[in-house]
């Protein structure tokens, strides 16, 4: 039985949507136990109004929680009984196997970093994010590619980047059912000698890594095209790239809204395209993906989007369950060990 700890108080729609998602997961994942961490009184009031399996959803009381806009370090120092910290401690103590949170990203990463150990051979953990692309991948025609690190740490050495590549590849193999995910380094040119020393060094190491399907360097414009299934970069660059991609998407939506209001002809054009837009939305629906992982620790952590609704939370729990069933952490540790030996 896999025990998945869920921070019930984290997220824009917490605790209602988080509890609803966990309740649904208790029915669709009979091999799992869901541990909801948060205000026991509030959770105890919510659960009976939802379909769930009472033998498979337990509650762990946490007296406080970190708000979405709080500064992570200060908040965790001031609130030792915050739900994310209690949740990470439960996993560290062996009372849970994986963690899911839709709460404050910084606080989640920091809580795991404080409580959990890194896998043998891993020097730095990496936070991944998924991004919809033109090309699809894996047995399930997954439209999402994985980008890591998007902000767990600021800088990364060549060795760290190789570690990120191993972790991203292992995750894509398992979650996207992609037998040989294409791994690329993000740089300012495709040539092996382009970019800072860390990128050049990582390039050379990855060429020698037999377990990694390394396709070389890619540029920023290749990310939305889906040239690579796993895009490896340092946290600072990854975070800038991710925010820019999100900004572009939002701007496109705003422009479409503007067009809809501004001219009848444009509105008609959008209506004519509506079914195609709906299809695009369903393909790139982040809620179906559930969340993105924090990789490198001895336990899986899935970070769900802050705006997650129940469906997204259920899917994030399913991803965590899949990571446990497929022994993601074991697979990463094994490859890191093999790389270290060569």
């Amino acid at each position: 039985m896999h025990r998945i700890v869920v921070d019930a108080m984290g997220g824009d729609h917490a605790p209602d949507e988080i509890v609803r998602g966990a309740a649904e997961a208790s029915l669709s994942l009979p091999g799992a136990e869901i541990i909801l961490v948060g205000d026991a009184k509030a959770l105890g009031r919510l659960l009976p109004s939802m379909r769930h399996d009472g033998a498979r959803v337990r509650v762990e009381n946490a007296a406080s929680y970190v708000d979405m806009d709080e500064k992570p370090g200060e908040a965790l120092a001031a609130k030792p009984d915050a739900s994310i910290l209690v949740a990470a401690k439960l996993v560290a103590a062996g009372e849970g196997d994986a963690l899911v949170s839709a709460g404050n990203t910084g606080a989640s990463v920091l809580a795991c970093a404080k409580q959990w150990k890194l896998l043998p051979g891993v020097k730095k953990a990496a936070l991944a994010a998924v991004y919809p692309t033109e090309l699809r991948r894996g047995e399930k025609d997954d439209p999402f590619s994985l980008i890591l690190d998007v902000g767990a740490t600021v800088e990364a050495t060549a060795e760290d980047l190789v570690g990120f590549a191993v972790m991203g590849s292992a995750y894509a193999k398992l979650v996207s059912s992609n037998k040989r995910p294409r791994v690329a380094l993000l740089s300012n040119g495709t040539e092996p000698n382009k970019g800072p020393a860390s990128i050049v060094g990582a390039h050379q190491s990855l060429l020698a890594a037999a377990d990694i399907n390394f396709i070389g360097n890619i540029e920023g414009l290749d990310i939305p095209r889906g040239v690579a299934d796993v895009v490896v970069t340092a946290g600072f660059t990854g975070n800038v790239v991710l925010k820019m991609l999100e900004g572009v998407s939002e701007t496109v939506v705003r422009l479409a809204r503007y067009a809809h209001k501004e001219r009848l002809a444009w509105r008609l054009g959008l209506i004519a395209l509506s079914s195609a837009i709906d299809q695009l939305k369903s393909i790139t629906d982040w809620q179906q993906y559930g969340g993105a992982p924090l990789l490198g620790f001895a336990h899986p952590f899935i970070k769900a989007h802050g705006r997650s609704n129940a469906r997204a939370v259920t899917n994030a729990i399913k991803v965590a369950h899949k990571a446990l069933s497929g022994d993601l952490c074991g697979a990463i540790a094994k490859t890191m060990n093999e790389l270290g030996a060569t």
Partner: protein
Amino acid sequence: MARRSLFERVARLSTLPVRVGERIGLFDHVPPGLPDGAPPPKHTFRWDLDKTYLRTEFDSFADLAKSAFETAADKSAFPGSPALLRSLRQDGHRICIVSGSPTQMRQVLTAKLALDGVEFDEFVLKNNLKNILRGRFRSMRAQIPYKLPAMLRSRIGATAPAETLFGDDAEADAIIYCLYADICAGRVSLQDLERVLEASRAYDDDAAIVLDFARRVPKGDAVRRMFIHLDRKSPSLPFRRFGRRLVPVFNYFQAALVLYADGVLTARQVIFVALEMLDSKQYELGHLATSLQDMMRRGRMTREDALRLVADATEAAASGALAERSDLPPFETMAEAFRARVRSLGNAEPPAWDPEEPLDYVRLVDEEHEHRRTRRKAGLSGAG
């Protein structure tokens, strides 16, 4: 093989119509009540079968057909329910089964109960063949006009000062059981009952029989507890309107916990129910501990009762309740898992109970019909 005498052969031939009639479900098997001079039971336990004791699917025609042709060995009981029923079989206790399954299933269901080591005093099934022959197609689906008189007649035949009822969330068990409890307690007037029967579309003569039984049934606030097995994993909140006496349970460990708190079961018997659930491989120790926590969160078990159970179970284990169970962790480890679940809740108090109002059964029956219509439209059905 010994040759049968002529007398035996004639005797067998003369019972043939009875045996054929039994096989095709022609007979009603009206419970005979208590034999002359027999002491009345101290506690009666009434059980539904499908979705309460037996894992039965009725959601499609294929499910129905499968259920009809299953052998006793193919049928599967919910983990813990046979152990619970065996534990309830005590001196002065009476086990009565009222099921919506057709009378044609009697042999296979009786065999299943025998396989599980479950003994009973009454076993009433629905005579749908009679309903078809009389053109009473409404009666085939009707629950209240079938179960209510069966339970009232049973109580008239053998009256106990205490009763506990077991049903499920597939159909109207919660309504029927509360109505039965309130009729026995004298809280439902004959006029109100007549309106409920009208709302439940009972045929006039069936309604007259129910009213007659309601008039004759020995009065007393006998129904102490009603359990609704949440087979569909329905939200438990809507069941709060039926009051504290009705307890929705996800599994039979939860029912055993409440019966322990009620003083009906001992800690040792609770352990037997738990062991059967663990042996089924569908539950692990953590699930049972979480089930206990769920009951506490819903205000169905107090912290004191939970901790008392752990202490009593520790004593029972020390006196051999877990003898020869080398597959289990040491009892102290198990007890600690339960204590930890209690601690996990912190000081959170369960939601307070509102003052109980008399139930409006006509409205409840109308809602149930509407609910059933919606389910049918969605392609789901059910039978109790």
